[in-house]
């Protein structure tokens, strides 16, 4: 399922735990790992902009070169060394590369060049990254939190196509040997239904959405999966269910929740969840 795993690490933050998870998944799925250290272009631009007027072009270029050189040094001496120690011990094939650019753009560039089945990454709220890739990439993204829990919560809802999540949850649960729980959330804040192409329908009544939920539960029962039906907001109900079962991993589908209130764009649900949750999340896009 995850033959080729891409682990991007931003110079903005480094979460050591992703190597443990990377090694764990690579052993289970016999994967190859590509590690990229991204020297965050936004940080460099910001520093350059701050120095504008205060330092000359020559000085600014020197400073930028020096910052890049030090980041390469950090990558070689600390990050790649940590990875080598762990992956080499377990005979996991991996290679590393240092790239300068914007986090999401670099990852998308990598996906254009090579075939990957999973992006495994950490998350840090206090940094300059926008995490556009959550919305713009169509392979699964595993956001590691470093939790030790070993159960899976699969979340389906009226706001997602619900095609890949059940299948992937079952396979992961079997391969990893983790318990599987599934919930179907009827999001009454955004009362629409999303079809298999990811298109949002017109507004629907609560009853119609609940009925659709029941239908989904019956379909899953035929596959031997128990599903709990809940209603509320997708984010809150997911967080509540994850808390209740002590989830280590929450699997979310390609939700299409409304991205603006009264025409004002709001933060994407995926980013909001990654910011607040204590569990790891697998976004199945």
């Amino acid at each position, binding site marked *: 399922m995850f033959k080729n795993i891409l682990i991007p690490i931003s110079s903005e*933050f480094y979460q050591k735990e992703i190597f443990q998870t990377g090694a764990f998944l690579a052993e289970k799925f016999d994967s190859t790992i590509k590690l990229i250290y991204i020297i965050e272009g936004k940080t460099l631009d*910001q*520093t350059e902009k*701050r120095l504008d007027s205060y330092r000359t072009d020559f000085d600014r270029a020197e400073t930028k070169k020096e910052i890049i050189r*030090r980041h390469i040094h950090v990558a070689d001496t600390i990050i790649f060394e940590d990875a080598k120690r762990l992956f080499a011990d377990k005979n996991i094939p991996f290679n590393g590369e240092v790239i300068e650019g914007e986090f999401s753009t670099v990852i998308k560039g990598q996906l254009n060049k090579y075939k990957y089945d999973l992006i495994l990454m950490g998350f840090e709220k206090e940094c300059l990254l926008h995490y556009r890739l959550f919305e713009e990439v169509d392979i699964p993204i595993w956001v590691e939190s470093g939790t030790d829990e070993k159960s899976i919560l699969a979340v389906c809802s009226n706001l997602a196509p619900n095609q890949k999540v059940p299948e992937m949850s079952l396979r992961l649960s079997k391969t990893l040997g983790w318990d599987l729980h599934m919930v179907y959330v009827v999001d009454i804040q955004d009362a629409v239904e999303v079809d298999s192409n990811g298109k949002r329908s017109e507004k629907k009544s609560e009853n119609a959405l609940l009925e659709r939920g029941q239908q989904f539960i019956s379909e899953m029962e035929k596959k031997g999966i128990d599903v709990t039906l809940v209603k509320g907001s997708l984010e809150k109900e997911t967080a509540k269910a994850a808390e209740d079962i002590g989830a280590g991993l929450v699997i979310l589908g390609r939700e299409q929740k409304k991205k603006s209130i009264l025409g004002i764009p709001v933060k994407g649900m995926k980013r909001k969840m990654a910011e607040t949750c204590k569990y790891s999340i697998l976004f199945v896009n």
Partner: protein
Amino acid sequence: MEKDTEKMEEEYKVIKGKSPTLSKRNILFIAVAFLVVVLFYFLPIPEGLSNNGKMMIGILLMGGILWITEPIPLAVTGLLIIIIQPILGIMPAGDVFSSFGNQAVFFLIGAFILAGALEKHGLHKRIALKFLSFFEKNPKLFTFGIMISCAFLSFIMPEHGVAAMFLPIVISILIAMKITPRKSNFGIVSMLSIAYGCSIGSLGTLIGGARNPLTIGMLSDIGYSVSFFDWMTYSMPIVFISLPLVWLILHISFPIEIKNIASAKTEINRQVSRSGKMGRYELTVLCIVVLTIILWIFVSSPTYFSLAVIAILGSILLFFTGCITWKDVEQRVPWGIILLYGGAITLGIGMQKTGAGSWIAHRLFDVTGNNPYLVIFGLIILTVLLTNIMSNVGAVAILLPIGLAIATEVPGVSPLLASMLIALSGGLAFIFIIATPGNAIAYSSGYFSSRDLLKAGVVANIACIGVIFLVAIIYWKGVLNL
């Protein structure tokens, strides 16, 4: 050959794609800034203010918006402030451009050339390593060493240059110690010590930050002369109280987890031995810089042998001895800051001559009353708030004319006292990454988060506000009778 052509074409495409364009956001900020001027043009003239004064307040707000949002370079905003005054008929063109004849401009140019020579020959790095080697005993002392070294170097060269030079030194040491970015309080404290050390050090002398010459420039326009030594007399108590205080705050906010710094010692020794023996040019630069500083402190006089004359003399000596060439000056002197300075000083002159400064001061008194202690406290708070969200030269440029006007109205607050309060508080930009280039440079290391900066910065700013307030009341007013 074909490959080379392909590569060139690829690069050409990239360059083409990167052609500078203003984003919608920047266009909006520029539009808002101009709209403010237009709005002031049509506003009725308030009681007690002239039409030119009203327009000057509009220009002040325009400058403030452009300096905070930065849709165009800071220096270009400076130029805009210069030309908009004659365009609107507020001041004659000859008057606004004459501000560039101020001695402080030439002092700045000379100081930048001297700093350029230090950087060219790596003398600043040698001094930094020498300083650091005195603080290798334990991790806590070492972080204090970083702070002290940054502060000391910011006495003799601009703070941004010091931060840019210290960053690679400290990262190399952290890497040698295998300190993982953002996972170690020692890493956080070390990096924040660079940012805060440079900021605090820049208060110490007239060279540390461009806002300092700007202040003496504005003071000289109203007949106050402040020598290099005078400045140090006023500022050094604040520097020497703030340094250990902020260092203590960093240690309380981020208790250091490591005990051994043997590998840091090895790395410093490695870097010292790599820099080799001091060369002839390095020694000459050192002698000229020391001589210039001695002349500034002990010999300068406002009439003939002024700070600017000494700064330019030092610069010319560097040329005579072959230590620098004109190419070095072109590479290392940031002319942008000179233009920014020009804009800032004309803004001050305009505010003063049109009576806009004193009108704002009166409106402030209506709200706060004219208790001198409250005024002193208010000026410090306002400057610290403003300097955290915009360029510190811009913040000082906006507040100095208002501060000077306040000083003429409030008994117990002299123009010199008000100016020193604003100039020194203007250097305390501790909270945000964007507040000062030193913070941005240290942040680019990846060793601390914006939250870490906020956490330590808020407390450090509050503490330093207290320090400036107490020094102003007890030492400046009480002892020096400012």
